[in-house]
Every structure is written in structure tokens, then in C-alpha cells.
């Protein structure tokens, strides 16, 4: 579960790299999972084809929506994406072809892969699906990591820092924003597709506002500066904590809420920065010495 949110949260961070934030990722999880579910149940396409296709559907819709909507900035883009996710959910609820309010059932598990000369690879139980999810996570983590360190990633950051300045050196702001959004939504769609086949059923109620906020909060909690480990840690902590508490009754919102507030208040870089933050809090001799050294150096430079 946390891997799925991890992938979705990475997609979110990629959009955030250009300085915008989306509050409607549940809409794209819904698009991915519904398109995958429809492809496999109605058309009989295998899971392995439906998975990338679901991502493609997410990309196409994100590119289409993004090229219109990304003209807005900041909070307004957040609100539009949020409204968009709600529209998607309500359209699914109101359309009988898409299962309506009741949802889609009996979504097949991934079909086995047959290698010549080897035993077929089955994906029927929870454990193989877990490994499949891990594999998907690693692949997308690798893609995001490479993308973030390479030229496009740097371009996205340049846009976030100063869009006008970036345009002045020949970076087309809109194009790159749409790019980041579309790539992010490809992986969100893939995560959604896996989600559908993992649960075997879908209802529109699964893609409510809370889901969108959850993706966003995983990223913020983990730390938005790191594109792979931040979302992974955030998603892991959020999922594990809420699942553990769910079995103890009604403490879940209280503790999750408190955890979020405290982390946002006291850890500016998210959970990922907890080590560095603790070092800063502790009155260690090591750090003091370093500061002292720096000071004398500065003084020496000034006196020169």
C-alpha cells in the first residue's frame, strides 16, 4: 500500500518541482485504475498491457488539462486540480458504464508470465503482488531519480525559482510545467492501475478528497526536497501509522493529525531531514567548534 502512495507522491513532487502543487492526485489515481480495470474486464486485455496504457491515459489527460490549467499558479492551480478530481469522481459515480456508485468488481489479478524453460511466474497471492509493487516502485524511483538529476529536472527547478528569469534564458515555462505534470501523472496512473488489480475492486468513494490530500501529505511529511526517499518515507510512515492505529479504534485521526502538525512545525525539510535537525538541536561540541572556525575565518578575511 505504502509503495502505491510512494509512487503517487513521487509523481506529485515532480509537479511540485516546477513550483506548483496539485490537490487532485486522487483524480489521476482514479483515471489510472478505472482505465486499467475497464481495459481488462471489458476488452479482455492482459494486465501487462493495461498497466502502461493506464499510465498513458493519465498522461494524455494530464497534458490536455495541464496545458489549459497550468496557466494558473499556486493556490489557484491547487484548487482547480482539486475540483477536477471531484468532477472525475462524480462523473464515475453518475455513469452506469463505469460501474456507477457501486463500482467495478472481479478485476483479474495479473496473469502469469511464462518464460521458456522455466516455471510460470504466478501473481495470485499477496506476496507476489508485493514484489511486483516493489519492482514498480524501484523502476519509477529510478526514473524519477535520473530525471531529477538531469537537465529536465534542473529546468523544472529553475522554473520554480523564477519563472520569468527562466523564460528569459530560453526555457518555455508552460511546456515544461505541462511536461512535469504529465510525467508525474503517468506514474500516478500506473500506481492507480496496480491499485485496481491489487484490490480486485473499485468504487468511486475510494477516490475522495481525503485520498488527494493523503498523496500530498505523504510528500510533505517525507520531505519535498528529496524526490525518492522523501515520498517513500512519508508514505511508509503515514500508511504504517494509520494501519496500526486503525486496529486500536478511534485514535487514528488524532495521532495522524498531531504527527503531521508537529512535523510541519518543527521539521522544515520533512521527516527525511530528521537526522540533520537533531544534530542542529543538540549542543554538540563538534558543531560549535566548526562555527567558531568559520567565524575566525570570516574575521580573518575581513581584516585582510
Amino acid at each position: 500500500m505504502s509503495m502505491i502512495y510512494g509512487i503517487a507522491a513521487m509523481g506529485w513532487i515532480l509537479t511540485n518541482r516546477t513550483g506548483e502543487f496539485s490537490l487532485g492526485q486522487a483524480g489521476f489515481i482514479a483515471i489510472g485504475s478505472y482505465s486499467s480495470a475497464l481495459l481488462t474486464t471489458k476488452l479482455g486485455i492482459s494486465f501487462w498491457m493495461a498497466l502502461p496504457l493506464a499510465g498513458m491515459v493519465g498522461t494524455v489527460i494530464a497534458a490536455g488539462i495541464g496545458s489549459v490549467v497550468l496557466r494558473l499558479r499556486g493556490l489557484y492551480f491547487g484548487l482547480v486540480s482539486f475540483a477536477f478530481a471531484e468532477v472525475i469522481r462524480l462523473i464515475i459515480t453518475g455513469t452506469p458504464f463505469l460501474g456507477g456508485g457501486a463500482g467495478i468488481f472481479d478485476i483479474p489479478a495479473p496473469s502469469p508470465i511464462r518464460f521458456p524453460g522455466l516455471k510460470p511466474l504466478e501473481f495470485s497471492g499477496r506476496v507476489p503482488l508485493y514484489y511486483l509493487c516493489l519492482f514498480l516502485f524501484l523502476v519509477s524511483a529510478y526514473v524519477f531519480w535520473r530525471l531529477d538529476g538531469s537537465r529536465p529536472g534542473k529546468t523544472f527547478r529553475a522554473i520554480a525559482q523564477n519563472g520569468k528569469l527562466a523564460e528569459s534564458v530560453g526555457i518555455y515555462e508552460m511546456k515544461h510545467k505541462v511536461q512535469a505534470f504529465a510525467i508525474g501523472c503517468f506514474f500516478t496512473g500506473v500506481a492507480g492501475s496496480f491499485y485496481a488489480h491489487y484490490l480486485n475492486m473499485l468504487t468511486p468513494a475510494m477516490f475522495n478528497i481525503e485520498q488527494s490530500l493523503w498523496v500530498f501529505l505523504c510528500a510533505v511529511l517525507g520531505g519535498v526536497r528529496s524526490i525518492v526517499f522523501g515520498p517513500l518515507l512519508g508514505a511508509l510512515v503515514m500508511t504504517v501509522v494509520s494501519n496500526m492505529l486503525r486496529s486500536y479504534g478511534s485514535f487514528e485521526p488524532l495521532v495522524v493529525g498531531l504527527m503531521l502538525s508537529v512535523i510541519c512545525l518543527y521539521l522544515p525539510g520533512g521527516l527525511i531531514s530528521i537526522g540533520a535537525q537533531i544534530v542542529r538541536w543538540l549542543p554538540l561540541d563538534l558543531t560549535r567548534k566548526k562555527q567558531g572556525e568559520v567565524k575566525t575565518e570570516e574575521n580573518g578575511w575581513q581584516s585582510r
Partner: protein
Amino acid sequence: MLAQSIFNSLALGMSYVLMSCGLTLVFGVALLINWPHGALYMLGAYGVYYVYAGLGVNYFLALLISITLVGALGMLIEKVINYPLGQTGLLRIMGASLGAMWFLEGLVLIAFGEEDKKVPTVFPGKMNLFGAVLPVDRAVVMIIAFVIMFALYYVLQKTKEGKSIRAVAQDRVYASLQGISVRRSRLLSMGIGCGLAGLAGGLLAPIYYVNPFMGAMPMLKAIIVVTVGGMGSISGSVIVGLALGFVEGFGYAYLGTWTTVIIFTLLIVVLLIRPQGLLGRLSVE
């Protein structure tokens, strides 16, 4: 039938107006969306449930206590979360205040349980007006809401504190150059805004059920109203809040579920054409 629909829409619209005026007031001054607003609405309702239905205090006194406490809580949120994080960007404020929202909901969940609670009606009976049947309690809510809106208008237009709030909303730098404490105005507007949310919750508690998660839907509607009406514009919130009440009141009678789709599509269209909202003048980066 028509008169009935109009009354229902008006009652619905007034409740939206109360919620969104508080939200837009806070936005205008502090430039942030007060995410726990829905939770504060819920707390207002639970305050009335506990003090009026539980302890047996007079309804209006219970309402007053409830509003005061919720307003104070809003100020506390401003002190602890919104102000210290003010310079660090939207993301952390949003994370922290969503956390606060869940924290408050969780608190009520543990204290009162998750099942629906009923607050006994204060004003029983129905009255006939222009051929429509109007429950007395809804009529009272509408009257109180009108009175409160005029009181808010008076406070913002005429009193020194209200003027300082408006000045900060217009331009915080020049306001502070005039000797207005931005911090104090933010605190005040947060208190008033959250008090309005508590009032809305307390007023509607006897009409609807009380539930720890009852705040989500009004919050969603308030965000729509505030965005369409223009963030920071109170007159925009009043007009759009009433309009939304009418769209929903008539829409559900004739269109059913698709009304909500239409509302959200309208929201997107308005944001694309006029991001600052119909009556807004503020622009946020």
C-alpha cells in the same frame, strides 16, 4: 412548490454564507486558507450539543459559549501554526493545519464517539408563508444569520478594529506603516472568522445531526463559494453563497446528482477565466 424551493435555497444559502464569510475574512487578512474551518464548524455544533443538550443550559447561552470557545481556538491556531509558519510557504501551513483539523476531529471522535447525535429542536413547529411550509427553526436560523451579517458589516466598516482589518487586507505594508499591528489584525480576523464557523455549526446543530466528520461538506462548499466569490471579498461570499444555495436547492429538485458536477465545472471555468474570483481583487502567487 416554487415558494418552498425558494425558502429551502435561502436557508441553505445562508448557512453557506456564514461559513464562507469567516473563511474569506481570514484569507483576506492572512492570505491563507484556513483548512480547519470545517472542524471548527463541527466543534461549534458539538459545543452546543454538549452545553445545551447535555448540561441543559439555555440554547442562546450555549451558542454564545460555543462561539467564544471556537473563536479562541481559532486564535490559538493562528498563534501556534499560521503565524510562525507564515514565511515558510503554503505547503507547510497546509500540512500543519490539515493535521490540526484531523487532530480536532480525532479529539471529538474519542470524546463523543462516531455515531450521529441529535440535538433537540429549539423552536418546534411550522408556519405557513406564501403557500410554503417553513419550519420555524430554519426561519430563526435565517433571521439570526441576517442579523449577524449586518453586525459583521458594521464591525468591519465602522469600528477601529474592523477598519484595521480591512486596511491590512488591502495592503499589509502600508497598514503597518500607519501603526496598525498586522499580527493583531490577523489574530482578530481569525477569531471572528472561526467564531462565525462555530456559529454556523451551533445554529445548524438542532436542524441536522451532529457527527465528528460533519465539517467536511460545509468546508468544501465554503471553499467553492470563497473561490468563486473572490478570496478576501465578503460581499462576493454573500452573493455567491446565496447563489450556490439556490443552484443546489433548485438543482437537486430538477437535476439530481449532476448538480454537483455542474457546480465543480463552473468552479473550474470561473478559475480559468477570472482566477481572482467574481468580486475579488487580490491575487496570490
